[in-house]
């Protein structure tokens, strides 16, 4: 909300300068976005009078002007404009000076020195509506005979301070200068006054010109209409234009400017209809019929639904209630009689309509946040006052006021002790009473009980908590002490899930991995890139784009994008991971199942580096070993990929990225990737750790080399040996795998080192041989292995 400082001062006796005021208001709850100094981009531009004009000797289109700018000597300026004349008063940018478009320096035009520039209205950011004469094509000729040398900002009222307030959704009353001035007066501890309401009514009755019927009273609790006859459409006076311009609204003509001025002043949006365009002389406020159409002021045809409220005449719609007027009933230069509307429409409904039509205006914005029915009347009175003041027309007698709301003020009784109990303060009831009166909540005191009469514009105040807040913000949050109610013993707990996630992240960090964070969104393209169809997904109705329209079920595509980005930026040997959620819709449930997942990627490493990492993650969190089975994922290399099992459950998948997928993600180099379902992993209960006595007797080690089919899993054989060997077999390690002519076509040689130990004593050779024999038999039987000779 742009609030010009000068405008605030019209209603409150502000003693502080704009910056101090802003600071005080921040501390009483009125956030400030920024403080804007207007006219800062216009410097050293003054009023000048052209004394003499001569032709430029070398250019037909240029003229040399000698200008009186109040200095001892005349200023020589070359201009290309042809609307200048001797005796004209014009804005002169004296070199060096600053204009909104940039700096002006002295220079030479075709050999003749020029010490500045004559300005057009456009160069001062002015339009004809802002200042008469600003719109001409050429230099702006100033009205009258202003004193030469005067700063143009002073003459044209271009400087001023505007405070941009952040208005909370609970304070729609502060979307107005009056509301802001009330807050300013409270913050600056000074007087506030309402603007004057004073106008004369003339012979004709509003009721004779128009009638009003409300057919949807639940959506319109007050509707005031008043007519103005003998309207003269003309520009509004300078003071009004300046106020509007400073508040960010372009002046148009007196009638439109009055509606805008009143809206800014009071926060109550107004509308003006051309009375001659109200067919049948009746204003009907009703819900639209489904499919009903009308062209709005912005020249667009709109189609309505029955939830939308329209302002209609006998024949059809003439405006969308609270949002925008109809094109056909617009005020034009020919308008002779105006009907002003000041109404209270229900905020939820206007918000829906504005959203539904995709049409947000200053008016709909204010109605959506809520207006109060008392201000509805004040606004109409102000509009009529301004009509009278500006001589813009004759105010008709009487206004039509349809009221469907109880205007009785709410009274809230609050005990001062309860306020102190909430705040942890020790403020006296008397003091609280003063604070509340300062924010226009008329408060009486019965003993320690505050009896608060809530003004209509403070619809946000409903109970003790709200009264406590009003007291607190004036008392000052900084004055509230610091206490500690949390002294009693209590422990902070973390879920087992989070502890496990911490352990995994810390392990990966220690192994040299970098943690990534990517968005939770995905889209059909991502699935296409990994060769998958789009799975059943959580769909976003209003996504930022098609590529972010789904909630992801896999972390893989984003990780591949990150890998590709790093490869293409020549970041070599990167190890990356992310822990995040996948979202899986559940039948019959409104919410999806959210599954924590881990994705890992490595470049410059191979399958077994990654497998080792995963083995350790499983040992850390679940205990025990993993098993791998060849996987069948379209995005993984068919020969270098595996499904990962732990505790009898599939917990993930890993492998080298498929060349087609590499191409889809623009990955120049290979990478290994893995994805683990952490929910499945966490579900495996890690056995309690128990102490085992350290071995007392030495171990025996033997090598065992066998020849098997190439497809036989060397790891499966290890598992089988461990199982068959029982307690005596302490360790089975693989130390050699090869294939070639010497072992035969389709075969491979696999060699293991077997460590055996007995708790009873040093193992004798016969015992060791017996174990090895048993292991060999197992391999022969289960895997068709042959002892390598």
């Amino acid at each position, binding site marked *: 909300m742009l609030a010009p400082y000068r405008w605030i001062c019209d209603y409150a006796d502000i003693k502080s300068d704009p910056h101090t005021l802003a600071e005080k208001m921040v*501390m*009483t709850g009125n*956030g400030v976005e920024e403080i804007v100094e207007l006219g800062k981009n216009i410097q050293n531009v003054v009023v000048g009078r052209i004394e003499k004009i001569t032709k430029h000797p070398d250019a037909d289109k240029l003229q040399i002007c000698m200008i009186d700018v109040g200095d001892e000597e005349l200023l020589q300026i070359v201009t290309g404009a042809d609307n200048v004349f001797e005796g004209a008063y014009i804005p002169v940018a004296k070199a060096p000076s600053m204009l909104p478009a940039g700096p002006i320096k002295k220079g030479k035009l075709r050999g003749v020195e020029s010490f500045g520039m004559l300005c057009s209205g456009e160069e001062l950011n002015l339009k004809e509506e802002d200042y008469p004469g600003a719109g001409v094509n050429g230099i702006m000729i100033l009205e009258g005979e202003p004193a030469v040398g005067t700063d143009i900002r002073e003459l044209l009222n271009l400087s001023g301070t505007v405070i941009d307030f952040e208005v909370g*959704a*609970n*304070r*729609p009353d502060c979307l107005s200068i009056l509301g802001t001035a009330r807050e300013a007066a409270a913050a600056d501890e000074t007087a506030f006054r309402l603007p004057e309401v004073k106008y004369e009514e003339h012979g004709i009755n509003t009721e004779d010109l128009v009638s009003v019927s409300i057919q949807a009273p639940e959506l319109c609790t007050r509707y005031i209409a008043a007519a103005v006859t003998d309207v003269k459409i003309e520009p509004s006076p300078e003071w009004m234009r300046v106020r509007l311009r400073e508040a960010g609204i372009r002046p148009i003509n007196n009638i439109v400017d009055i509606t805008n001025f009143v809206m800014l002043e009071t926060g109550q949006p107004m509308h003006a209809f051309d009375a001659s365009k109200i067919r049948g002389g009746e204003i009907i406020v009703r819900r639209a019929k489904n499919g009903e159409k009308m062209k709005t002021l912005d020249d667009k045809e709109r189609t309505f639904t029955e939830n939308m409220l329209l302002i209609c005449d006998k024949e059809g719609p003439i405006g969308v209630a609270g949002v925008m007027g109809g094109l056909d009933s617009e005020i034009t230069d020919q308008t002779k009689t105006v009907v002003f509307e000041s109404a209270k429409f229900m*905020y*939820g*409904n206007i918000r*829906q309509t504005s959203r539904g039509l995709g049409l947000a205006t200053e008016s709909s914005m204010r109605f959506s946040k*809520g207006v109060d029915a008392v201000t509805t009347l004040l606004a109409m009175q102000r509009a009529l006052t301004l009509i009278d003041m500006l001589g813009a027309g004759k105010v008709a007698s009487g206004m039509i006021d349809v009221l469907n709301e109880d205007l009785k003020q709410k009274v809230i009784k609050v005990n001062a002790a309860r306020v102190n109990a*909430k*705040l*942890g303060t020790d403020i006296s009831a008397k003091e609280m009473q003063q604070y509340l009166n300062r924010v226009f909540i008329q408060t009486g005191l019965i003993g320690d009980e505050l009896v608060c009469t809530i003004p209509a514009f403070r619809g946000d105040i409903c109970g003790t*908590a709200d009264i406590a*807040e009003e007291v*607190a*913000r004036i008392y000052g*949050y*900084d004055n*509230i*002490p*610091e*206490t*500690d*109610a*949390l002294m009693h013993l*209590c422990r*902070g707990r*973390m*879920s087992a899930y*989070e502890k496990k996630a*911490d352990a995994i*992240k810390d392990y990966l*960090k220690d*192994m040299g991995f*970098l*943690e*990534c*964070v*990517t*968005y*939770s969104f995905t889209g059909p393209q991502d699935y296409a890139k990994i060769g998958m169809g789009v799975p059943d997904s959580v*769909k*976003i*109705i*209003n*996504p*930022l784009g098609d590529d972010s329209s789904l909630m992801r079920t896999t972390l893989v595509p984003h990780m591949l994008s990150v890998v590709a980005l*790093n490869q293409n*930026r020549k970041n070599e*040997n*990167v*190890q990356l991971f992310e822990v995040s*959620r996948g*979202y899986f819709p559940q039948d019959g449930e*409104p*919410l999806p199942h*959210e599954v924590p997942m881990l994705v890992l990627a490595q470049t410059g490493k191979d399958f077994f580096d990654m497998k080792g990492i995963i083995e350790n993650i499983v040992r850390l969190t679940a205990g025990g070993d993993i098993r791998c089975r060849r996987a069948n994922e379209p995005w993984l290399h068919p020969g270098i990929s595996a499904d990962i099992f732990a505790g009898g459950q599939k917990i993930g998948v890993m492998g080298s990225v498929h060349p087609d997928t590499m191409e889809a993600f623009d990955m120049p180099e290979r990478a290994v990737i893995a994805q683990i379902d952490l929910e499945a992993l966490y579900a495996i209960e890690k056995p309690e750790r128990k102490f085992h006595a350290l071995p007392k007797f030495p171990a025996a080690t033997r090598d065992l080399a066998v020849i098997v089919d190439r497809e036989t899993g060397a790891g499966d054989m290890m598992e089988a040996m461990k199982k068959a060997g029982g307690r005596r077999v302490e360790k089975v390690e693989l130390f050699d795998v090869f294939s070639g002519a010497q072992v035969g076509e389709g075969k491979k040689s696999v060699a293991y080192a077997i460590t055996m130990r007995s708790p009873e004593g040093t193992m004798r050779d016969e015992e060791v041989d017996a174990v090895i024999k048993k292991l060999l038999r197992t391999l022969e039987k289960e895997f068709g292995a042959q002892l390598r000779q």
Partner: protein
Amino acid sequence: MECEQIVAKAQGEIAAAQSSAELDGIRVKYLGKKGEITLLMKQMGALSKEERPAFGQAVNAARKAVEETLAQAIEKIAKKENEEKLAAERIDVTLPGRKQALGALHPLTQVYREVRDIFLSMGFDVTEGPEVELDRYNFELLNIPKDHPARDMQDTFYVSEDVVLRTHTSPVQVRTMLSQKPPIRMVCPGRVFRTDDVDATHSPVFMQMEGLVVGKNIRFSDLKGTINTFIRNFYGEHVKTKFRPGFFPFTEPSAEVDVTCTVCGGKGCGACKGAGMIEVLGCGLVNPVVLENCGIDPNEYSGFAFGLGIDRLANTKYGITDIRLLYENDARFLRQFV
């Protein structure tokens, strides 16, 4: 005297020896099985009974003298040799160490953990909840009914009429209040979503942590105490805080909290737009309407809540000026947080 001559000769050779090998040769030459002094002793048999004791003593003295000299020499030479060996093993200590690349947790995780650990130490539980959430929990029970103006404060991704991507982690507070009796003391971290287009200061996904305390006689001053304790722990004792009145539909009274700008220390700079303070969190007493909505009697209990943006804390802590870097995951960026 033969003995004295042998000793003198041996001592001369010992003094001239340069290495422990040479010394060992000298030992064998004089004291070995066939050494000169050993051989002298063997001559004893040829002597008369009277001559023997004197001779024996002389030879033993000679042996002792040689042994002692030899031992001294061995010690000296061994020391010298050791020094030479160590000198030969000298290395260039300025060469770089051999190391495995360090990994790093994401800056958001690091900041989150720091914040979390402070609250854990103050006795807060850490609770998580769904990211795809019911409108009822994300808005309605938090005193933001449908079509309420406050809905405009948070631009929301909708999955259906009744399901949204949570815009804050407050629904976890709602779930906690609905399922747990006071006293409650918890924080709820996690991802939240708003329909903001990506630019240097906006991201549609970001990380938040909110906290909730509900109990008997919880006051605004307790909120101040808790928040200030957290801020002093996180930013340091020297940091000043400012509580400004603010507005949130779910708290009343509400406050926004500024802290001394971490970049300029309060003098005013680009990061704090010259204010010397930066906004870090929002908080307030839980609105009685919210307590009631969640089945807690506002006449018996009161509470406070707060919320802070982990992204924002990370950006101010590390001086990150473009939020997109957090989600791009360039290894060169991530390695800066080792």
